[in-house]
């Protein structure tokens, strides 16, 4: 399953927002409105109030003016002991704090800044070449080279909640060991692992549409496409080209300050799949790894 697709080139920005966290904001707005008044006073002093679920203060996190910086002591930038002798340790479970953190940072996303994108060093050619040579020359990287087809059974085995990036702390090439080899084990070893393979697979679920987000490096606005509307990678690549052509043209106009010759129609964005163009299609799988589009059969 694909989380979202990103068009990327070297040194670009990668957005790794977890869509689930952003979805929570609208649901909780009523609760937030009702509680805000009484919580505001508390949060200003303690940062995070204890034992409140999902405390939503969409302003900046916790008050900061109860500690002072002592200018005399260079080493200790803070009169630390005083703080801790008067303030009891707050017992706020991590989850709420991290949730708060994520919600706040999500709420504070800067508006699409078309005004000033500093000119990125132009390494697109290098990146495209790199990707191309990477494919042909068998590049090395810590990312998994064993793209043993992540078959559908392994994806569906995951009944656990959405995995946290980088957890558990194992290297990428250790992630698919059991799932990658389970088919071999079943056939070759009579004392089989077949019994030991983990958990029941959830029932097949096949909706009629499958919308995924596509973001392109340097373009603040993304698009969504329905993967079920295409039947091949080539069609997807064409669609991506059409969707983003205009946006790229608009962006480069603004950045370069010159008017495009063809009146804003934009250049064709080609070579998305084979690494020959300026941009390449990659996607981010549900483990958080960036993968090149095209390895897995379209189905």
């Amino acid at each position, binding site marked *: 399953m694909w989380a979202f697709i990103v068009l990327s080139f070297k*040194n670009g*920005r*990668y*957005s*790794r927002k977890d869509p689930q966290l952003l979805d929570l904001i609208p649901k909780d707005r009523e609760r937030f409105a009702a509680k805000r008044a009484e919580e505001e006073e508390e949060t200003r002093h303690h*940062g995070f109030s204890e034992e409140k679920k999902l405390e939503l203060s969409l302003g*900046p*996190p*916790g008050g*900061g003016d109860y*500690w002072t*910086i002592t200018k005399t002591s260079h080493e*200790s*930038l803070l009169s*630390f002991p005083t*703080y*801790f002798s008067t303030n009891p340790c*707050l017992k*706020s*479970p*991590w989850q709420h*704090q*991290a949730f708060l*953190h994520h919600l706040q*940072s999500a709420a504070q996303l800067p508006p699409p*800044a078309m005004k000033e994108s*500093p000119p*990125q060093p132009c390494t697109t050619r290098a990146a495209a070449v790199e990707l191309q*040579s990477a494919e042909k*020359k*068998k*590049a*090395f*990287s*810590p990312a998994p080279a064993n793209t043993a087809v992540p078959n559908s059974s392994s994806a569906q*085995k*995951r009944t*656990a909640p959405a*995995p*946290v*990036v*980088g957890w*558990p*702390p*194992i*290297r*990428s090439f*250790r*992630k698919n*060991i*059991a*799932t990658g*080899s*389970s088919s*071999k084990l079943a056939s*070759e*070893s009579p*004392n089989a692992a077949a019994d030991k393979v983990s*958990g029941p697979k959830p029932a097949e679920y096949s909706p009629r549409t499958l919308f995924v987000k596509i973001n392109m490096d340097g373009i603040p606005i993304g698009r969504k496409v329905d993967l079920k509307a295409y039947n091949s990678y080539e069609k997807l690549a064409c669609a991506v080209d059409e969707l983003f052509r205009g946006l790229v043209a608009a962006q480069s106009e603004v950045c370069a300050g010159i008017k495009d010759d063809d009146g804003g129609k934009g250049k064709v964005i080609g070579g998305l799949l084979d690494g020959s163009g300026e941009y390449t299609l990659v996607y981010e799988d549900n483990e958080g*790894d960036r993968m090149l589009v095209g390895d897995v059969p379209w189905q």
Partner: protein
Amino acid sequence: MAYSFPEEVLEHVFSFLSSDRDRNAVSLVCKSWYEIERWCRRRVFIGNCYAVSPEIVIRRFPEVRALEMKGKPHFADFNLVPEGWGAYVHPWIRSMSAAYPLLEEIKLKRMVVTDESLELIARSFKNFKVLVLSSCEGFTTDGLASIAANCSGNAEGRLGGLASEVKVCSVFPAECSEVSFSALERLVARCPNLRTLRLNRAVPLEKLPNLLHQAFSVCKQLKGLSGFWDVVPAFLPAMYSVCSGITSLNLSYATIQSPDLVKLVSQCRSLQRLWVLDYIEDSGLETLAASCKDLQELRVFPSDPFGAEPNVALTEQGLVSVSEGCPKLQSVLYFCRQMSNAALVTIARNRPEMIRFRLCIIEPQAPDYLTLEPLDTGFGAIVENCKELRRLSMSGLLTDKVFEYIGNHAKKLEMLSIAFAGDSDLGLHHVLSGCESLRKLEIRDCPFGDKALLANAAKLETMRSLWMSSCSVSFGACKLLGQKMPRLNVEVIDERGPPDSRPESCPVEKLYVYRTVAGRRADMPGFVWMMDGDKALTFS
């Protein structure tokens, strides 16, 4: 003293000093000792490539023959460092190609190494012998080929830790010409002194038994075996003949299971180091504990880390058994799904000489499964009993209390990894103020903010580095730290855009602080901001 030894004598004496710490101590005695020592230092270890510049190293040590260097922070292994962050080796190779024509050895870890760099190495160093690339990226087989083609003699290329498609991982003391399977066979047949054989995925499975037979019949001294991506039980008997000599066994990619796995392991009576998947299960570890009394290091990796339910019968009991049965056990990395304070206390009491203890309970913040309490007591017992502990990674449900224990007891602790733990800044304060030997601290997803960090700013200059991601350190605090501590590089890694487009109290995504004598680096990507004294915020 009015008279001192002639320089040559001192130099000869210093030549017996191999440890960096000893050599650094010697350099501090007096100016003449500093001068003599720096001219005869042959090996340099740089734990953080950005802590110093090539020019500074070359200026001080003009006659280096071996360089070992590390780049990215450890959490880069788990995808927490965005691509393009840095750690490029090329500027170093360029400088050294001019300054160290006699360089023989380069060992790199977590660095970006391009084919261009490899080609430059191959061209520049006539006596080049050893290249070790551990968890590096950015190169292809073309680059390696140029190394192999140009470096004759005793060249050893080892590519530990990569999931790669290279044909051969180990090159033997013979020619390192073109890599092919038949060449590998011939080389193996000619190497009675073969000590380490590392194979990888690309060695065709059907040829493996013959190769192993040859290797094992000829190579009586085989000490270490690793690789085994697809070992299937049928091949194992080929190995039994050499098991008795094996001291290091890496089966961490091998999906073989009991009873074959256990039989294999139990035959390796001299085993000192075992890396294995959790297919070994508690029963297998019990057998290991009974058979392998020389075991020093055990690593058990998860076969199905993302599964919701356990797929194997591996619990805390396996580790307890090994701690009971293996008197020399000093280094542990253990992935499991349940743990108890009682087990940790038992392990701590069994093995007070433990040096590295890394425990990963797969579910974040999992409590003691028997009592549902935090695991503070258990880890507290570890640091209290294991007075030589140098490295600790914790997991499970942990409060500020465990950090109090660590700060009070872990006086030799050099590296600490924390995730999803603690309640407040007090936890971080305990660690920074109490752990005297701390060099590397890496933290993710903990409720630590500005206070402990700023109060212990001076401590950071005594450490190699600090990593904090998904914590509560504000941009304002990072700025302040950067301004006040000129000998630290305070890097804010944030992919949401410039930090000053958000309020100062907004927490940063990731923070990486390291001491340096090289000043700010010139190769920062767009998502890294350096907190400077000059300006509050600068782009690279």
